[in-house]
């Protein structure tokens, strides 16, 4: 039998004992035939006066049972060869396309066959996608695409990825999507200028994006080739890492990354006052409930008004005092707000003393966390401010920072990004923002400055050219308006309780069940063009995800940053190449 015969031969017939509808129908399989979940099938029907209607769909459930058995114990009689019975297999098909759009049910008894190459692409609406973004490999081993119009803001934007930490490979998939966006050619000429900002939240796994992965097998390379993507690491990566604590020269706290661009990330006190960054020091859920939010605004406003830059290290003079470190600033604010004579200058009107004290207590507790990040004591020559202008992919490494500092960095950099885009006045080129733990930065309950920015990105990002690729363990705990604005929704392995929540309504019941046992590397991707999410697998990362996998480092940067990194005695330290299992 040739392959052509296999594809032309019917695998089953439309079942008549279950009602067939234009949206879903069941098929009984012919002997020696099989269908698995996610297979694409086609059936045809002649409609009098209107011609042939082709109904195609995806198998969303398969069942096998004994026909002729009445009692459960009959299975033993049948297996022992005493009772005659037949094994019947039937498959539920969820219709994805009716062509032409004449919504008649398929006729019971009509032949159902596997979709051939062209039919399969039509069934999955790939033929109607002008710009196809490869998003992985289908269960049939063929590429699966998303409509890029729903990623770049033309018709919709934003990607939401949900799944259990560690098993769902959310970050890996987000980066695969990014790789696909940059290298698949969907961006055309704009690919060169399109930028991405990736927050490294959980470990050093995103610090080697421009290193080839030494564990990449030829099979994985073939997977990339199948999708039309190069099996290469990211071309241009710049890492921003926080300064090493206690280091007077402010070298970045990065150990494993020995080649490629790394700069330390900090904000001067002058910028802090000028850009009113104080609210981002108070971005916890705890702060949301407190009564001092008005006070934060008043203090930030006065700092902006009165702070005068001094010298060339970013130090400022406030209320006649020179402030060189974050601790100095906290101490100054404490003195000014505690003194009855000066307090009214900072907070006009009657602010309760309790609120002032609560504000100061929170401010004091931030000294250790924010001290290394907000400072006025470093040499600013050749300093690189945190922005996406340095490379195509900007990695902001916050994994080593305490929670408060993480929030400060995320809030500050996101706002900067959004303001830059607003100022540029055009959506092109696009900026992708990859942020994990969205349930921390944009929780469903309460309100704080970072959540407001993320909401802004979700609701206005389409027109600004900012695309959010958010990941979270539990979509049910993320602000609903953010999730509902995401055109592409992805689910990896889900927690059973989580899978039952309405946020996953886009997954049909059988896929919800499957999401409980999804393997690492397989995802369910829902897109507006298709009524059923597609199960896809994506290839092993072509870039290193930890030091042990890292191949030859990319070219070391030239110039002062490089010499700065090279001068760092710790940067040359080779980390322990532990052989812990890959996060993939």
């Amino acid at each position, binding site marked *: 039998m040739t392959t052509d015969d296999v594809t032309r031969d019917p695998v089953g017939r439309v079942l008549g004992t279950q009602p067939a509808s234009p949206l879903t129908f069941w098929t009984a399989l012919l002997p020696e035939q099989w269908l698995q979940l996610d297979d694409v099938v086609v059936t045809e029907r002649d409609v009098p006066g209107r011609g042939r209607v082709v109904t195609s769909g995806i198998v969303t459930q398969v069942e096998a049972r004994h026909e002729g058995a009445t009692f459960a114990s*009959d299975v033993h*009689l049948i297996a022992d060869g*005493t*009772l*005659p*019975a037949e094994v019947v297999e039937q498959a539920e098909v969820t219709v994805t396309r009716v062509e032409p759009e004449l919504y008649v049910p398929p006729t019971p008894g009509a032949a159902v066959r596997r979709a051939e190459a062209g039919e399969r692409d039509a069934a999955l609406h790939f033929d109607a996608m002008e710009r196809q973004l490869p998003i992985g490999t289908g269960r049939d081993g063929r590429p699966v695409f998303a409509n890029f119009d729903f990623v770049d803001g033309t018709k919709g934007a934003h990607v939401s990825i949900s799944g259990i930490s560690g098993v769902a490979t959310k970050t890996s998939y987000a980066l695969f999507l990014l790789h696909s966006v940059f290298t698949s050619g969907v961006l055309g000429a704009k690919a060169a200028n399109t930028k991405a900002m990736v927050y490294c939240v959980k470990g050093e796994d995103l610090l080697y994006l421009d290193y080839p992965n030494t564990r990449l097998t030829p099979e994985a390379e073939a997977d990339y080739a199948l999708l039309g993507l190069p099996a290469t690491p990211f071309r241009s990566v710049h890492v921003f890492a926080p300064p090493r604590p206690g280091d007077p020269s402010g070298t970045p706290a990065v150990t494993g990354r020995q080649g490629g661009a790394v700069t330390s990330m900090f904000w001067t006190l002058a910028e802090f006052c000028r850009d009113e960054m104080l609210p981002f020091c108070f971005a916890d859920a705890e702060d949301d409930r407190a009564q001092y939010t008005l006070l934060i605004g008043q203090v930030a406003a006065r700092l902006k008004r009165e702070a005068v830059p001094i010298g060339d290290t970013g130090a400022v003079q406030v209320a006649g005092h020179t402030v060189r470190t974050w601790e100095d600033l906290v101490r100054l604010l404490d003195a000014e707000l505690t003194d009855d004579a000066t307090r009214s200058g900072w907070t006009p009107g009657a602010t309760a003393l309790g609120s002032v004290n609560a504000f100061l207590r929170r401010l004091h507790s931030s000294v250790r966390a924010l001290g290394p990040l907000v400072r006025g004591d470093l040499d600013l020559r050749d300093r690189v401010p945190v922005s996406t202008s340095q490379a195509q992919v900007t990695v902001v490494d916050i994994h080593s920072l305490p929670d408060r500092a993480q929030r400060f960095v995320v809030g500050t950099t996101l706002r900067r990004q959004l303001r830059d885009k607003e100022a540029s006045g055009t959506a092109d080129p696009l900026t992708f923002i990859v942020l994990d733990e969205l349930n921390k930065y944009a929780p469903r309950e309460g309100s704080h400055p970072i959540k407001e920015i993320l909401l802004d990105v979700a609701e206005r990002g389409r027109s600004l050219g900012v695309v959010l690729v958010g990941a979270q363990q539990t979509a049910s705990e993320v602000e609903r308006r953010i999730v509902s604005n995401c055109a592409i929704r992805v689910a990896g392995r889900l927690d059973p309780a989580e899978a039952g929540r309405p946020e996953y309504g886009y997954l049909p019941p059988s896929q919800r069940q499957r999401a409980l046992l999804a393997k690492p590397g397989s995802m369910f991707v829902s897109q507006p063009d298709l009524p059923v999410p597609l199960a896809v697998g994506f290839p092993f990362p072509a870039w290193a995800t930890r030091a042990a996998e890292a191949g030859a480092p990319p070219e070391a940067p030239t110039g002062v940053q490089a010499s700065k990194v090279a001068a760092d005695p710790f940067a040359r330290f080779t980390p322990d190449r532990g052989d812990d299992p890959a996060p993939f």
Partner: protein
Amino acid sequence: MRVAVDPWDPGYGTPGAGGEPDDVSARVTLDLEVPADQWRPLPADREGWEPTQVLLVDGVRRVDARLWFGLDDDPVPQPGLAASHAAGVVRLDGSARVVAQRVERTLFTALGAARDLVTPLGTYRVAHAAGGDDDALRLALQQRMTSLEVAVADAARVDDDLLVVDGPLRGRTALPRAMGYVKAHHATYLDDARNAVVAALGPCERTPVFTIGTSWTRHAWYLRLPTSSTMPWAGIVRCEVADTLSRGEAVALAGVSCRVLPPLASLPHKDPRAPANLVPVGGLERTLRHRLGDAVKLHRAITVAAARVA
């Protein structure tokens, strides 16, 4: 000619099992296998001829509609019976499979002018019965089903198999290696002493082979299937083979029956005719009944078709 469907549901008024009236004036020869005074329960022998496969044949029938034929020149209408009947074979050779099945739809009547009844769901072919009364029509249906069983069984035979026919072997004694399997005991063929032997049979034990001569002659023996009931004749079935077989052949078949049939006995909570209604036959009957089609739809189709004949 006009045809009308009797509005009565055909399920009513069905006489008994529609089978043959048992002949009580039977000549019984008891000493075919052992002398009559040495009758005792015989245990299943472990050795002997082993069939390569066991075929079980059975048929089902259902009256779909009772018809009345009215001729213009005859004031008395003639009855007819539209029936669906099917026969099938289960082959046991490690697995149980329905290997042959056939469904026929027939219109039984004594009226010579009757024509085939064509309905959208199938055509009822006319078969002429010997008599016009209800019993004669039902007997014709029974005979038709029996011959269908023979035809179906014939097609499934292989060398060295054993054919078990559900019911008496009457009319089918010419089939090689065939055994009739009688579940119901309408007549008493043995005397009291021999009946005591039957009652004393243990599970899988049989009586010696004896010969029954009624309107036709055959060799027979009683066999007890395993059962939990303590009634004296519970689980007793009668097996029949053709009288043309030699003593040795008949005894060999009797020996095989003790090994082949007891494992097929059904369970009371699954089959109201347990244990005598064998499991493969129960499954076959279910399949065949299903193949007869939907009674309500067929009745409606016949009504519509009959109205068109007028």
